[in-house]
């Protein structure tokens, strides 16, 4: 779909590294260019035309985001630098003051580093316990296993909506319901879901939802943390400075904003927020259901081809997102990646920041193909043709 909107695809590049970051359509780049060449200004501090235009776009984007993930009007959208910062903010601006020694946080071993390390740090600081809900034989999280793990000590469930190596889509509606019943905070890492499938913050009873702009056609350097309205009031900023205080006095007293800007000290990524807005409008035009359906078709097609190849070991045939992880027999994942680059096919090799997953799949490194709306069946054919080669190793040396 829409290949013509992506200048990087004008040549013969096949871009299958969308889990890492996505290409940007001309529309997004143009909207950002306009800010940088026509109405550059800081927010909240100017009365001239450019400043007013910037302000409006910056503020309105919060509503664009909230509508996009179906948050309520009382919920909040804080701009961050991306998923990593969003999750760190959940942990250090909220959980640190709401959890105590011995409280259990449930994670899984397929989580990305950004949904593990902040919790490790909190464990060091205040002595929470971290438990991993066991995955099933397809390396997926099941409700049964989650329910079993939900003891009375569990205070938080923090999981990816879609994991970035296995690509399984977690049933966040049911999980959110369970968390609500048991008074457990529900934190969702939406880095791989918000860009690819419809996400419903309200229906899924989410308390915190984190995602990144650059993985959804938007610019780098911007992301969001969507927070349930009631919990937002109990959050405390880690960074302080300009743009987030009402007043401060020489005796050390200060008053802070009460809206999202309380968590956006300093000049935020204004051009990037404008780009994020543009990306969301672009995605909405296509429709998230359509994007998901398209990716799923491509994934099924790729799997049907790879399954026939004896030298390919697949790890996630079962999952419903556009992510396919595999290895080629006898060839190190990175060599496969270097080889495919010679055929102008961009994929990713490695542990994909999910460094605990090897304990489950028994493999440190995999080749990951991750689809997006601009991929098509011809891209898949190019990949399959390239992999159908007995001399991969020779070509790669």
């Amino acid at each position, binding site marked *: 779909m829409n290949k013509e909107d992506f200048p990087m695809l004008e040549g013969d590049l096949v871009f299958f590294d969308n889990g890492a970051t996505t290409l940007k359509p001309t529309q997004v780049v143009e909207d950002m260019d306009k800010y940088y060449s026509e109405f550059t200004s800081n927010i909240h501090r100017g009365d001239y035309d450019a400043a007013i235009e910037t302000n409006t776009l910056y503020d309105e984007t919060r509503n664009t985001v909230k509508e996009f993930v179906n948050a309520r009007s009382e919920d909040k959208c804080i701009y961050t630098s991306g998923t990593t910062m969003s999750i760190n903010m959940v942990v250090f601006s909220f959980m640190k003051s709401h959890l105590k020694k011995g409280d259990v946080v449930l994670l899984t071993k397929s989580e990305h580093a950004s949904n593990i390390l902040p919790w490790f740090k909190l464990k060091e600081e205040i002595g929470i316990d971290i438990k991993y809900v066991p995955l099933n034989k397809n390396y997926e999280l099941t409700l049964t296993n989650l329910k079993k793990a939900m003891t009375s000590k569990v205070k938080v469930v923090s999981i990816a909506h879609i994991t970035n190596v296995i690509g399984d889509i977690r049933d966040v509606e049911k999980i959110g319901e369970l968390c609500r019943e048991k008074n457990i905070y529900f934190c969702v890492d939406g880095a791989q879901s918000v860009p690819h499938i419809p996400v419903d913050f309200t229906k899924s009873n989410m308390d915190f939802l984190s995602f990144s702009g650059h993985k959804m056609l938007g610019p780098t350097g911007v992301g969001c943390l969507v927070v349930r309205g009631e919990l937002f009031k109990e959050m405390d900023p880690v960074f302080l400075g300009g743009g987030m205080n009402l007043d401060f006095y020489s005796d050390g007293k200060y008053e802070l904003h009460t809206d999202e800007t309380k968590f956006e000290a300093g000049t935020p990524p204004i051009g990037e927020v404008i780009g994020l807005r543009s990306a969301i409008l672009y995605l909405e035009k296509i429709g998230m259901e359509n994007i998901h359906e398209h990716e799923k078709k491509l994934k099924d097609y790729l799997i049907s081809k790879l399954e026939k190849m004896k030298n390919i070991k697949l790890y996630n045939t079962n999952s419903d997102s556009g992510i396919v992880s595999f290895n080629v027999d*006898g*060839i*190190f*994942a*990175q*060599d496969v990646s*270097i080889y495919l680059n010679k055929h102008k096919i961009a994929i990713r*090799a*490695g*542990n994909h920041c999910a460094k605990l997953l090897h304990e489950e799949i028994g493999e*440190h*490194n995999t080749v990951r193909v991750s689809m997006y709306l601009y991929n098509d069946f011809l891209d898949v054919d190019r990949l399959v043709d390239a992999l159908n080669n007995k001399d991969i*190793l*020779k070509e*790669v*040396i």
Partner: protein
Amino acid sequence: MDENLKREIILDNYQNPENKELIDDDSYLKVNQASESCIDNLDFMMKIENNNIVDVRYDGEACAISTSASSIMSRALIGKSVDEAKRILINYKNMIEDKEYDKELLGELNVYDNINKQPNRIKCALLPEEAIDKMLGGLENEK
């Protein structure tokens, strides 16, 4: 050396690497060499007796270039004195970094004399060199 022959030697050392097995022995020097920019990750161990390298071993997960280079490097160093080994390491590093070097010292390691044309492979080829250099450096600190 003929390019095809080089490729065959590299491939053979990747698919049938020599000395790719660690042992449990405290008399060895040990180091883990993982690349921050790529996913190669090898553990090395080396035994030195009377200033001679008597064994070099390694194991882990790494690409065709760093695995084969570790295999060839281990063979090249076993039986050499520490001083000879250092000369080999310096000349190998110079070759990989496209500087002047003494070809005569490097034997089979010469198969990587063109690797600098593939910038993303340079760090792979240097992985065993860095590991062994670290272990030899550690040795000096002990003196």
